[in-house]
């Protein structure tokens, strides 16, 4: 059994905790949260040991692995402390506010050979995984251009301020929504290293942006557009999609449906010349416990398997998350063509 503890029992933390609770190889040894009420409920009804001070928890329960699901601004300090204690780590996205911090933590984790993963769950979605396979196989030829999009109904009116509306604390659409798309583009197309211009637009929020538009370029000189808006009420929930145009074809994919066009019959098995449509239902592997999407269970299972040495620690590593943080910082620096 892997002894796992959680720091931060908010929306993501509780979701992870439930999936971990159902995992056959995991023993939940402790939960640290600042809310007395949340701790109280978890003690009374789940029987978990809870703590308000995470260091006291680490001393008391000695976990093999910790899930960190606290606001991003705390990640750097907490993660460094945890790495120094030789604990395997799963950290919620985005990784750190400053990419220099992310790079430093990635180096420590590597040196200490600790399993490290960040919660960019899109990489565990069957359609996006298939897009990566098609592109890596060279099946749509040389990539010319991409479009990464995400829309959803998070901020639909002027509201009271929380940490999500404070740019210093990792709030805003860029950190929250756009980070997912950037991370996916880095993974599927190639790492982005240049931002030619960006617009960060408030719609309802006072201090943060509700929409992000940017012109991007990868280190392999592929151009692309990022278009993200979390004040979009025509969507029922977050919807992420990517379009990739290549010399031999084109792919349009979201989390549920993959459409791919091949110019010739030189395409992978199961596909043919012209348009092809595949659904996530055909591309998704069964999970043992389902809470809110196979990808949430799959990423946790992957992390646990990596600790057990059954899979390589090469998905959503601190290193890849640091590259995403770097692009976020490039977009901020180019803000409104500064």
């Amino acid at each position, binding site marked *: 059994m892997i002894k796992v503890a959680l720091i931060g029992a*908010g*929306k993501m933390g*509780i*979701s992870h*905790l*439930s*999936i*971990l*609770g*159902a995992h056959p190889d995991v023993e939940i040894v402790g939960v640290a949260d600042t*809310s*007395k*009420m*949340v701790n*109280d*409920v*978890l003690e*009374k*009804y*789940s*029987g978990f040991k809870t703590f308000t001070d995470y260091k006291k928890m680490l001393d008391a329960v000695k976990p093999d692995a910790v899930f960190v699901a606290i606001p991003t601004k705390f990640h750097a300090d907490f993660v460094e402390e945890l790495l120094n204690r030789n604990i395997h780590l799963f950290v919620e996205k985005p990784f750190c506010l400053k990419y220099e911090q992310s790079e430093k933590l990635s180096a420590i984790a590597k040196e200490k050979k600790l399993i490290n993963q960040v919660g960019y769950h899109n990489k565990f979605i069957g359609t996006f995984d298939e897009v990566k396979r098609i592109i890596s196989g060279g099946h749509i030829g040389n990539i010319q251009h991409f479009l990464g999009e995400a829309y959803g*109904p*998070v*901020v639909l009116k002027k*509201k009271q301020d*929380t940490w*999500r509306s404070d740019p210093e604390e990792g709030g805003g659409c860029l950190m929250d929504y756009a980070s997912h798309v950037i991370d996916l583009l880095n993974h599927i197309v190639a790492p982005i290293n240049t931002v030619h211009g960006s617009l960060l637009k408030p719609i309802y929020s006072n201090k943060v942006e509700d929409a992000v538009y940017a012109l991007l370029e990868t280190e392999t000189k592929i151009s692309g557009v990022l278009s993200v808006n979390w004040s979009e009420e*025509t969507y*029922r*929930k977050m*919807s992420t*999609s990517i379009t990739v145009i290549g010399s031999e074809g084109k792919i349009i994919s*979201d989390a*549920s*449906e993959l459409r791919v066009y091949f110019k010739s019959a030189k395409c992978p098995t199961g596909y043919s010349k012209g348009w092809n449509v595949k*659904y*996530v*239902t*055909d591309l998704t592997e*069964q*999970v*043992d*416990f*389902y*809470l*809110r999407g196979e990808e949430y269970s799959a990423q946790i299972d992957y992390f646990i398997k990596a600790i057990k040495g059954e899979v390589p620690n090469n998905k959503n590593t601190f290193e890849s998350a640091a590259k995403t943080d770097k692009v976020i910082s490039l977009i901020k620096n180019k803000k409104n063509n500064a």
Partner: protein
Amino acid sequence: MERILFGDNQFFAVNHISDEKSRAQSIKFKEDKTILDTIDIARDLGTETFMCTTHDRIINICEMVRQDPEKYKNFSILPCMPYAHKYANAVTELGIVGTIQQYVPGNFFGTMFKGGLAVMSKDYISIMELMVDAEMKMFKKINTPVIFLQNVVTDLLLGLGMKDILKAYHDYVIKKYNVEPGFITMNMPKLLAMLESVGIENPIICSSINKAGFRMSGGMEIYEKTLREKQVRAIAMQVLGGGAIPARDALEYVCNLPNVSSILFGASSKQNIAQTISLIHEFDEKKK
């Protein structure tokens, strides 16, 4: 419980395989009247039970139903609560405590949290009860023979091992509304084991059951074994496996499983509604 239940996903742009189809559904069912007209088509074909989430738009549907008691005298609704996206969006914005404060009626929480007073176990259960009551308001005077807990909540509690809260929900629905409690889940065998462990016998459990094994967590075999060997009143949903299986094969599979009391399906067109209902009847007849 009726053999065939009419579902609501198609009305609220829930489509598991295509965002584009979702959008087309949003456009088609823009008016509440169109939703009720489609429910009427299912009723005319003998399916008088509508199973739906406690979406805001159901408030208006219920109002229209109340206005014509004669027409809807045999009609019943099976509410599924809560409408999760409403709370999920609120938690993102207000946090967990803030969400409870916003959605739980009465102001004693405000003072309790702010004062940092100790909260007794019975208070947590009463929060749950108040939330059930708040969601049930819209169904006043409408026959609701089963009240379901949505899968995201059921499964969250299941993973967290909070069996006493599941039991408290079960008992409250019986005590307060004198109807049957039901549970929606994506983890039917695990949930059944937990419900049995707190003394709930032969529960009503709605879960994905289909020939493709889609969203049958842990695998089809364990589901089929559970249906064969355990006592459960199962409702099969997602019988088409998210569109992966042709209707005839899909319905033949579920109709022939033991312990599947009801089949839940959703469809937008009269043709699809009629076809599904007649196929279920056809396979049920053959079994006799």
